[in-house]
């Protein structure tokens, strides 16, 4: 999620005023384990843990429209997963305010693209030209 969490939370609070939100499963927060295989003996080991939170809810608007949404996010804030699940429901059911959710998504995508470009630039700066080492090696041999 690229947008600040507080902005998303205040947006969903405003959006869902007067709506009925019902949990479809108990929102949960915990740790996920990242398991990979090491290359020497091909044995699995846990590289590390990451926070993970999930939410699944049903929304009903005052005019009777309803939809379901769910979210699983690498974060330990349950309310954030609930907010994303609400956005998912609003988009899937085209509930009132779905255009605002689309514009938030587009802003988030643009922010993410900017971050990715910056990271690529930083990575490109760290690249080393190893072809020069060959010349240096030849000089040493001659000396």
């Amino acid at each position, binding site marked *: 999620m690229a947008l600040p969490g507080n902005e998303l939370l205040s947006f969903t*609070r405003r959006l869902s005023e007067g709506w009925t*939100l*019902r*949990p*479809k499963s108990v929102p949960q927060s915990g740790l996920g384990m990242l398991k990979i295989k090491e290359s020497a003996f091909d044995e699995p080991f846990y590289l590390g843990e990451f926070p993970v939170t999930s939410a699944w*809810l049903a929304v009903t608007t005052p005019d009777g429209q309803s939809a379901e949404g769910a979210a699983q996010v690498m974060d330990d804030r349950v309310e954030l997963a609930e907010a994303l699940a*609400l956005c998912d429901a609003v988009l899937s059911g085209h509930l009132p305010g779905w255009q605002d959710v689309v514009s938030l998504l587009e802003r988030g995508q643009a922010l993410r693209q900017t971050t990715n470009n910056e990271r690529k630039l930083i990575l490109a700066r760290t690249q080393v030209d190893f072809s020069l080492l060959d010349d240096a090696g030849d000089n040493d041999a001659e000396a």
Partner: protein
Amino acid sequence: MLKLDPIWQPDAQQENFRLLLDAMARPGHRYTLDTLPENGTVALTVLATLLDAEVSLDDPHALLRHEDWPMLQAQSTSTEQADYILCDATQTADFTPKLGTLPSPELSATILLVVDNIGKGNLQLKLTGPGIKDDRSLSITGLDSTWLSKREEWNCAFPLGVDLILIDDKQVAALPRTTKVEVI
């Protein structure tokens, strides 16, 4: 943002878990549930406390609503394979649950029986065994007699067997496999 029924909240579940431990330690003693579900069967309070995604449940008498299952997260399975079985005690016992194995008797089923009333009724039981000083009497309404005969059959090869939890509209009482039950 989401409002959860108190039975799904950690505080209530911890209190209910303590209550269930006490109930298993003192068979036949009636305990009152402080937290009851806003909708659905009262057994949901007990199920919400005991179940998670690692265990399996069967509901042969369809006491649960469709929307209760994702909240409980338990895997649905056959009565013969289930870790927990929720039953209407007014109906007959017509299955054989998991009884565990000698090295792992804990791999048996726990049966939750929804009765009409615990503490009142014409079915009078005399209980003896661990956790009971001398004996204890327990009256029940809405328990088909087949449950007691089947229980005796299931528990005849201790430590194999099943543990029963009786639930009415606000109380629970436990009949672990170690308790001897006589109908007075």
